[in-house]
């Protein structure tokens, strides 16, 4: 049971937090893990705060509740820091990863005294540079959380995501390289 990693994603409707949680479940599955990837459905609309979850473990878990004490939290949209208690229940041995231009020190005052590690990454700018669209930051955030949590071996993760993208974008091969670049930059540029 101690081998189980629980991750909670916070985003706004339309930003791809759910898609990223499913992509992480896919990659973890390819690594031979047991996975859960599921969204919490509230009022589904563009811009509304949404939550998605991952459980990754070596044995199948029978637990089917939401995650209240995550090991890691990913915040896809920093405007949520003032709207949602993103660090609620977050383990202090864990970490939070936030998409923002600010440094970890600069965002700490917004985290209600969270004692664990704080990581930031400017995923929206990376998305703009690599994919031409600031709102496609979820790929970069996926890379960042895998790097921070070390829940999957990095090399295998990159290969698995590439295979998955090749399948998904079979008719648009140019998209694959760009997404891989955005993902790798997420893994490298996330900072504590």
């Amino acid at each position, binding site marked *: 049971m101690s081998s189980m990693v629980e991750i909670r994603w916070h985003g706004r409707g339309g930003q791809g937090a759910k898609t990223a949680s*499913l992509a992480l*479940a*896919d990659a973890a*599955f390819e690594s031979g893990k*047991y*996975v*859960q*990837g*599921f*969204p919490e*459905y509230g009022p589904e609309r563009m811009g509304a705060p949404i939550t998605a979850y991952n459980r990754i473990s070596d044995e*199948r*878990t*029978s*637990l*089917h*509740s*939401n995650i*209240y004490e995550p090991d890691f939290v990913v915040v896809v949209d920093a405007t949520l820091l003032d709207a949602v208690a993103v660090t609620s229940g977050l383990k202090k041995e864990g970490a939070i990863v936030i998409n923002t231009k600010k440094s970890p020190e600069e965002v700490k005052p917004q985290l209600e005294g969270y004692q664990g590690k704080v990581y930031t990454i400017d995923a929206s700018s990376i998305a703009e540079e690599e994919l031409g669209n600031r709102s496609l930051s979820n790929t970069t955030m996926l890379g960042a959380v895998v790097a921070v949590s070390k829940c999957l071996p990095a090399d295998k993760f990159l290969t698995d995501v590439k295979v998955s993208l090749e399948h998904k974008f079979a008719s648009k091969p140019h998209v694959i390289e760009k997404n891989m670049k955005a993902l790798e930059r997420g893994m490298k540029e996330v900072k504590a």
Partner: protein
Amino acid sequence: MAAKSIRERLSGNEAIATAMKQVNPHVVAAYPITPSTEVVHYFAQYAADGEVDTEFVAVESEHSAMSACIGAQAAGARSATVTSACGLALMWELLYVASGHRLPVTLAVINRALSGPININNDHSDSMGARDSGWIQLYSENNQEAYDNYLMSLRIGEHKDVLLPVMTCQDGFITSHAIENIELLETADVQKFVGKYSPERHLIDGKPMSVGPYDTVMYYFEHQYQRAQAMNGAKKVILDVFKEFGELTGRKYDLFEQYKMEDAERAIVVLNSSAGTAKFVCDKLRAQGEKVGVLKLRVFRPFPMEEIAKALSHVKAVAVMDKADCFSAMGGPVFADVRSACYGLKDRPLMINFIYGLGGRDVTIENMEHVYASLSEVIKTGNTDNFYRHVGVRGV
């Protein structure tokens, strides 16, 4: 001999769509409704892409979906549909028509709360309301059980000693939209397992017959008696099919699952996804030396009365969980049946009821801990006057 297993990850909806594709029914008539919509999308795509031979009928309502399935099944076709919540409610009239005419239609229910007020999330008010419609009901903890139950549902319903429609239920969103690991069968093995559908008689078999004419006072009662007899006899067929499926897949199922029940003094009776959460909490308390167990119902219609009574006979106190209220002012539907099943026991366990998780209210570890703690209190006092309880509702 065990069949080859394919390791996959699918949501509960994808699992049902995959099972339906592998079965390749003659007719699927369906109308989309959240959270079962995805299954209709996937299947319509399979039909459009020629991945199945199915006649896909894009009907204009669930009433028509069930009507089309009934007509097709009466004409000798294996027919199937999928729905949730108000969609199932709109089928209501036809549910009885399907079972009353002994037509083994299969229906995947993705459980969702009935309106009103409107809510798209999970509870069991839809299928629990349909529990007396003459359909066999199987419940599924996760995507794997949803897939397995669906494949077995055809064999159960179509068996000549049963000839009743079957609904396979799983929790909307909680399992229908959650990606989890799953082991699939190869399509050839599915085809072999479900076999060819060959009813003894049907509308277009060349020998003129009628289906659905007025059933007079002279005959109606006898037909109802026969329908009840079919349900009475279904248990044996269900066990045979479970056994055969277990030999094929290595996944052994029973009428219900007994989890750490051998020496349990306190037990939770529950069905669908929350059974998994109950098992998780059971493990946690067992590690602290507490004698707790979980009885997970899988077959709710027919209701395995004798077996449940036997399984609970040694338990001191039982909490029956209901994710639907039936507004009888005496607890939920599962509670009514479990308590009734235990009436004949010489030493009956103390028994209380919890209504939980309505309209998608998350069912937490703390909820299940509260239920087990309540059972300790009941054992201490021996008092069950306050048997009709709620967990997870604010202000109670």
